[in-house]
C-alpha cells in the first residue's frame, strides 16, 4: 500500500485531496503548483495543500489512469509538468463527489439531531 501519511494537524480528510485535484483540473490542464494554488485560493485559504503529499497524490492518480501528464511551459515560460483529466478521471470525480455529498449530508443530519 502506498504510504502518503504526513504527521500534520491540518491534514486533509483522507481521500479528499484526490477529489479536489480532480475537480481543479475540470477547466483544463494545470501543473502541480497551480493545482495547489487553486485549491487554496478557491477555499479562501481554509484548505492548505500539504505540498509534500500533493505530488504523491498526483502520481497515484496518474497511476490509476485518472490523469495523464506531459511537459509544457508554464505561464511565466518555465518548464513544468502538466496534468490533464482523463475520461476515467471525470467519472471518478463524479463518483467521489456523490459519495462526499452523501457523507456530508449524513454527518449534517447526525449533528443536526444532536443540536436539537
Amino acid at each position, binding site marked *: 500500500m*502506498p*504510504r*502518503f501519511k504526513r504527521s500534520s494537524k491540518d491534514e486533509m480528510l483522507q481521500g479528499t485531496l484526490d477529489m479536489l485535484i480532480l475537480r481543479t483540473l475540470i477547466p483544463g490542464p494545470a*501543473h*502541480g*503548483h*497551480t493545482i495547489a494554488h487553486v485549491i487554496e485560493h478557491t477555499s479562501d485559504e481554509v484548505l492548505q495543500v*500539504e*505540498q*509534500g503529499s500533493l*505530488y*504523491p497524490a498526483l*502520481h*497515484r492518480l496518474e*497511476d490509476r489512469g485518472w490523469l495523464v501528464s506531459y511537459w509544457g511551459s*508554464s505561464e*511565466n515560460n*518555465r*518548464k*513544468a*509538468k502538466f496534468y490533464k483529466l482523463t475520461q476515467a478521471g471525470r467519472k471518478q470525480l463524479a463518483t467521489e463527489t456523490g459519495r462526499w455529498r452523501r457523507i456530508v449530508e449524513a454527518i449534517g443530519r447526525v449533528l443536526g439531531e444532536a443540536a436539537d
Partner: protein
Amino acid sequence: MHLRRFFHHRAHDNELARELEAHLQQAIDEYIAQGVTPEEALRRARIRLGSETRIREDIWEWNSLVFLESMLRDWRYAARTLARNPGFAIMTIAVLATGLGANAALFTVVHSVLLKPLPFRDPNRLVMLYERSVDPRFAFNVVAPGIYAEWQKQGQSFTKMAIFGSSSYNLSGSHGQLPEKIETTRCSADFFSTLGVQPAYGRAFEAKDDRLQADATVVLSWGLWKRRFGGDPSIVGTNVLLDGVSYAIIGIAPAWFAYPDMQTEHRELTDRLIADRLTRTFSVIWQRKANLYDMPTPRQVARSHSPATRRFPPRVRTGVGLSRFE
C-alpha cells in the same frame, strides 16, 4: 503499480526531481513577485514544499517491488562480502557443495533402495516364504523344493508362488568361443509370471517345461546374450550346452531384469527336484492375493500350512515363515 514503472525507476525519479524543481521555481517566482528577496523566496518555497527527498522516497518506494529489491540488495551484499574474502568464500562454497552433493548421492541410494517400488508387477504383494523349523536356530530357513511343492498343492490364499535357487553351470563353447562357468538361477516355471516379467525376446517358462520328460529350457540374461551371442534375436530356439546337457534357449530376459543378481541365467526346475524335501537351498517368492494390510502373521501361515508336512519324517516337518520380498 505498473511493472513498467518498476523497471523505469530511475528515469521516473529523475522526472519527479525535475518536476519538483519546476515547482520550486514557480513558487520562488511567485514570492519574488510579492516583493520578497530571492534568498527569502527560496527559503519560503522550500519550507512550503517540505523535503523533496522525502517525496521522492515515498514515490520511489511506492514504485518498488520491495521484496524483489531487498533480495537484489542481499545478493549484491553477499557477492561483495564473498569477493572481499575469497578464502572464506571458497571454503563456504566447498562445504555447501560437498553437503549438497552428499545429500543428493545419499538420496539417490535411498530412493532406489527404499523408496522406488520394485520393477515387478504388484511389488507390494510379493513376499518371501521360509520354512519355519521347530529348531529356533532355523526360524527362517531356506526352502526345500519338496516343501514348496506341498505348499503349492494346498495353498489357496496365494495367486502365484515360485521357487528359485542358484547354481553354476559350465556353458560349452561354440563357434570357437571358450567354455565359461556361469552363475544360473534354477527356478520353477512360474518364476517370471510371479514377478510379472515378460522376456525381451521369445517366451518365459511354461508349466509344460516343468516336467522331467520335457526338453530342458533356458532363458538367457540380457548381459550374457549380448556378450556371448552378439545380441542376435535368432538365437532363440537354438540350443546351448550347460554341463554337457543340451538346453533350448526359449527367451531372453529384458535388459533391466537382474534378479536375484546381476549375472544370472534362468533355467527351469524340474519335478525331479520337486521331489526333494531335504535340499533346503531354495528361495520362494509368494505373490499374495490381498494387499499388504491384511498380510497374515507368520504364525497364522505356519498354522495353516503345517499339516502339509505332518506326514513327513520329523526332520522335514516344518511350517512357513514370511519375510519381506528381497
